[in-house]
């Protein structure tokens, strides 16, 4: 349409017909359409940020809190179990040592109290007892009988100790006093760490002592052979802090331990030393201690903290890794979902924008309608005057006697021509008025053939300038159909416009418009076939997509056919396309005789009344 071109190519239109009342202003505010892309992207990135933060707050934080809570709880539980187990271990080992010492003290006591001194001072007897005691395991290294003055009465053992006098030895007095005595480790005459068990018996008013040296190898292996992991060690210290067995790492037997053993108590205790603590002598270690009552030795089980809790820490580490991996995956999924959502929102926004564009397009069309109506009206008035003037002249000519035949002929011819041309103008203005009326949407009965002819009329001039001829082939038996003429007009104008444009570069061509009623399908088949350049196979699939255009940027919105498709579908019809490159394109439309029920229902009562009233021809 010529008017359309004017509207789309300029921002401000003032149409003024000289000396007349009409002045139509039309301003299209393009600026409102051009949204700043920078602000737009900022809006989306803000939306993205908000969504992400919200999802993180709602999902990640609770997950992490629960995860960390469970982890802390579990660690506490596992550690207390670990501590219990180390405590029961030290108790168990303590019991074994205690039993060992008690067993051997009892044996010696039994021997002392069941045999007389005179019997035991016989080396053969003592030898027998020594052998009996060591029969299963070598548990004592020597055995001796000592009189009240500290002299050896008999001795069986690897050392030559018969002439030794023990009256000054520290254990002698203790043994004489207490009756039974187990010594700490000492070097003594044999110059190697050992300890003795001494039992005192009073026979005929005189005390004597049965003394045995415990096989320190056997005893020490009882403690030293206990292996706990890589860093664990078990050892005994006496109440003065002297190692009674060799620890695996922290010293040797008979050496002073680097810590004070503390006072005696019954319970087994567990201590955890974290960080360096020079006073305690431990750092990053867990220790379990229990006191033996006789002698007062302390059994210490000690292990590096990190090793003792390796399993717990490992489990902890695994859970934390799992937890944080989960958190990370949630974060990633959140970001992806948010991105997807934002892209959906963007898509919806674009769709809304498209709809807006379509509305603007419709608004534009309505303005054109208004403009057309105004123009038509204002042209009709002078036309009416011209025709009345002509009639006056004709009337006058009828009553005036003029002999000049040539003048009469010429006048008549001119008058006829004035009539013909005025009527031509009338056809144009009436078509414009009809066009304008159809920019308002309404449902009415339409004689499709006549309707198409009017549309062809409207487009004929433009087609002619492009060397294109219309070939209408209309089914005269077509019944009137019920539809929306404004929307149909838009579709037909669009299709014809496209068909005309398809002939660009071709000197001439045709547009065939065919209508065929189909009683079976209860509708009309309308075909628009052109001889234009055709559409390639790749493009034909996208042809009804919004914003798809092969025209240069700024020349086409790409909305035309998409709008046609939407309109025809809404009116209960169908539109298909066939095309051959360089041969032409054929659009096939199907329109039902009647409107789809849901469209009818949406019509107001007023519309229904309008339907029943006859259409008035202008």
């Amino acid at each position: 349409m010529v008017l359309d071109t004017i509207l789309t190519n300029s921002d401000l239109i003032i149409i003024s017909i000289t000396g007349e009342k009409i002045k139509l202003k039309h301003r299209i505010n393009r600026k409102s359409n051009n949204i700043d892309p920078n602000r737009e992207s900022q809006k989306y990135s803000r939306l993205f940020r908000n969504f992400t933060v919200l999802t993180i707050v709602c999902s990640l934080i609770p997950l992490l809190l629960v995860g960390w809570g469970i982890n802390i709880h579990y660690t506490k539980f596992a550690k207390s179990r670990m501590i219990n187990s180390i405590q029961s271990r030290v108790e168990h080992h303590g019991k074994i040592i205690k039993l060992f010492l008690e067993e051997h003290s009892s044996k010696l006591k039994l021997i002392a109290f069941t045999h007389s001194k005179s019997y035991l001072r016989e080396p053969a007897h003592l030898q027998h007892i020594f052998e009996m005691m060591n029969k299963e395991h070598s548990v004592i290294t020597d055995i001796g009988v000592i009189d009240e003055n500290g002299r050896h009465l008999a001795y069986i053992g690897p050392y030559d100790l018969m002439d030794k006098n023990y009256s000054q030895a520290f254990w002698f007095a203790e043994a004489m006093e207490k009756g039974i005595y187990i010594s700490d480790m000492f070097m003594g005459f044999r110059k190697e760490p050992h300890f003795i068990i001494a039992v005192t018996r009073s026979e005929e008013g005189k005390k004597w002592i049965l003394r045995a040296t415990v096989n320190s190898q056997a005893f020490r292996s009882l403690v030293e052979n206990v292996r706990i992991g890589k860093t664990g060690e078990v050892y005994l210290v006496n109440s003065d802090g002297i190692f009674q067995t060799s620890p695996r790492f922290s010293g040797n037997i008979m050496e002073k331990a680097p810590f004070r053993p503390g006072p005696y108590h019954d319970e087994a205790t567990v201590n955890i030393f974290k960080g360096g603590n020079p006073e305690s002598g431990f750092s990053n270690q867990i220790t379990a201690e229990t006191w033996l009552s006789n002698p007062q030795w302390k059994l210490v089980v000690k292990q590096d903290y990190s090793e003792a809790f390796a399993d717990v820490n490992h489990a902890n580490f695994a859970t934390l890794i799992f937890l944080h991996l989960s958190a990370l995956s949630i974060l990633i999924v959140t970001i992806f979902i948010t991105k997807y959502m934002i892209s959906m929102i963007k898509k919806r926004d674009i769709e809304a924008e498209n709809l807006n564009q379509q509305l603007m397009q419709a608004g534009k069309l309505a303005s054109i309608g208004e403009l057309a109506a105004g123009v038509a009206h204002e042209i009709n008035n002078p036309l009416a005057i011209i025709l009345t003037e002509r009639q006056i002249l004709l009337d006058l000519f009828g009553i005036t006697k003029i002999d000049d035949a040539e003048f009469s002929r010429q006048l008549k011819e001119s008058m006829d021509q004035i009539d013909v041309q005025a009527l031509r103008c009338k056809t144009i203005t009436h078509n414009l008025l009809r066009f304008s009326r159809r920019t308002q949407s309404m449902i009415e009965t339409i004689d499709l053939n006549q309707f198409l002819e009017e549309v062809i009329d409207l487009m004929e001039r433009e087609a002619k300038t492009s060397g294109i001829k219309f070939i209408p082939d209309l089914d005269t038996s077509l019944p009137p159909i019920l539809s929306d003429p404004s929307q149909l007009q838009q579709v037909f104008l669009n299709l014809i416009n496209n068909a005309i444009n398809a002939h660009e570069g071709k000197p001439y061509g045709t547009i065939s418009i065919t209508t065929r009623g189909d009683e079976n399908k209860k509708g009309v088949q309308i075909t628009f076939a052109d001889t234009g350049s055709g559409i390639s196979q790749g493009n034909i699939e996208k042809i009804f997509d919004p914003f798809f255009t092969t025209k240069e940027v700024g020349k086409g919105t790409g909305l035309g056919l998409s709008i046609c498709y939407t309109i025809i579908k809404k009116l209960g019809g169908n539109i298909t396309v066939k095309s051959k490159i360089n041969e032409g394109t054929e659009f096939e439309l199907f329109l039902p005789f009647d409107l789809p029920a849901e469209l009818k229902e949406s019509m107001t009562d007023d519309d229904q009344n309008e339907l029943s009233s006859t259409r008035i021809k202008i």
Partner: protein
Amino acid sequence: MIGSKILLVDDEIIFTNNMSKLLTSRGYLVTAVNNGESAIRMLEEKDFDVVVLDLKMPGMDGITTLKEIKKLGLFTETLILTGHGSVDTALEAIKIGAYDYLAKPCEIDELVEKIEGAWQQKDADEKKDMQEKIQKVIESPSDAFKLFKKKK
């Protein structure tokens, strides 16, 4: 009908002048006014058979004028003649009581044809009304004076 009294209402003075000449030469008694207000005044003063009314006029427009004419309750038919080609306005005019609708520009013969139609309609209405009155007079002669006095 030769001698019919026609009131032409159109804001285009040249048009009303021309139309007056044409219709007068065809035997009609034509009065022309150029706005709705004058038309109403004229109708109050004189009797007319047919009013030819333009829809789009400055001041009182055609539809308002038509409503005013109808309010007067005369035996006058109104013919709409306008360059404004909206069906809606045409329908509205006919609903209000216009006889018919004719779009400008039109041939003088077309207009004459419509005017004749309008006159016949008016004539028929008038006759029917008269008959009804006569009927009433026959039925109750006492009311006769009242009836005829009432008719303006």
